[in-house]
């Protein structure tokens, strides 16, 4: 696994980007792309991250991000880049 898509959905509040980014930085996961918007009154953020230098497996990263998401009151989902690419890029 080299790259993953991290999707964050929830009610907007200060600290969401910081909270998620901190976990990524702690594990040496590089953010390659980030965009955010408001979808149907919800905050939505998506990041493309590189895990090739990371010190955790995708499984561990997913658990940790889900835990941080719970604290922040948002849903955090980690999927392989290929799932996004298969669905949305022909």
């Amino acid at each position, binding site marked *: 696994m080299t790259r993953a898509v991290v999707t964050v959905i929830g009610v907007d509040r200060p600290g969401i980007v910081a909270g998620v980014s901190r976990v990524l930085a702690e594990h040496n996961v590089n953010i390659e*792309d980030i*965009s955010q918007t408001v979808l149907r009154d919800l905050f*939505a953020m998506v990041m493309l991250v590189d895990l090739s230098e990371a010190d955790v497996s995708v499984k561990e990263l*997913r658990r940790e991000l889900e835990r941080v998401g719970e604290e922040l009151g948002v849903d955090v989902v980690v*999927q392989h880049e290929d799932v996004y690419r298969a669905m949305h890029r022909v």
Partner: protein
Amino acid sequence: MGRLDVEEAVETVEMVRRMNLDVRAVTLGVSLLDCASPDPGELRERVVGKLLDVAGDLVEVVEEVEEELGVPIVHKRIAVTPCCLIVAPAARELGEEAALELADALDEAAGEVGVDFIGGYTALVYDGFTTGDEAILDTIPEALERTERLCASVVVADERYGINMEAVKRAAEAVKETAERTDGLGCARLVALANAPENTPFMAGAFHGVGQPDACVNVGISGPGVVRAVIEELGDVDFRTLHDEIKRTAFKITRVGELVGRRVAERLGVEFGAVDLSLAPTPEEGDSVAEILEGIGLESCGCPGSTAALHLLMDAVKKGGAAATSRHGGYSEAFIPVSEDAGMARAAREALTLEKLEAMTAVCSVGIDMVVIPGDTPVETIAGIIADEAAIGVATGKPTAVRIIPAPGKEPGDEFELGGLLGKAPVMDVSDYRPTMFRRRGRVPPKFPR
């Protein structure tokens, strides 16, 4: 990869989280042609040895891919060469004893590997019976009673050869006896087929065809919940727009199946076979094909208009799915099992009758599936239901099937609980008038080509 689109990323996430998008089945097909032996003990040893060797890592690999991609994969299964072929050398002398030894071997291997089901306890009898077929047919009820994971199938018809009506009757007898021996539950692992696909990942009819490689991975996709959500969101659009949106959704779902299949096959070091473009429902809320049809525009699935709605859905799923994988296979149809689809089970208490269900299967596979009927239904009536479905298969060239449960002691309207993903269903009413044709011998000839 170009820049990320937030809406697209959110769509993917919502499909998995809210709409039950998953890959329904990853099935490893394994050839057992090199395991046949006249000695049942040796047959058993070879079968277990080969399955542990080829499929030993299957569960671990599938779970690894699931974790890595972040897409749920529900079932891991094995399909083997039709047992009528493998058992033949041993069955020549030892008949049923050899077949049951093989049944035990498959179940043991499946348990050890950790798969949910193993398919291929199969008799290929669409054009007649061999020693191996006889051994399988005679032992299906006992084999299903003494195993947990084994799935059995009887291929009774083929568009090129017609319908073997004697095989139809024997399949019906097997259904009836299996129900009596297993309190109905074993019938979920037994199916009578016409035009059986040799590379489907779906049970109970999966087996590994003789033209297949030594081992390959086939994938069954899912996603009724996703299609239903799309239809709901669209509102009252015209039919063409509706068809187009279903097609796009089917494309996306199938691409995920293709991705999973490729990856699992690569890790196992075997070929990637086909993607079965099927909408496979579950008893879970919202994950229902019946509710899709109702979303297209039915008060209750089974009312007039249901066959047309199903036809539209099927065509869109196939066109979208076919663009997403260059190898579709198996049934590639919407499944409309009654017990496994909570919407179908509800409809069976409302508009849906057995006869309307049969009509609907003329435009989609896989036939009369997971239907519970009264336990005292005569064998001839069950045979008539199988023969009708086989006739639809032979006339249309589609795979069709009957997986029916004559639940002992149950009457129309009673509830029958199968448990877990097999769901529950009301017992459906069956005609009191019975066919008398099964006193005749032989076959119904194939259809004249159009």
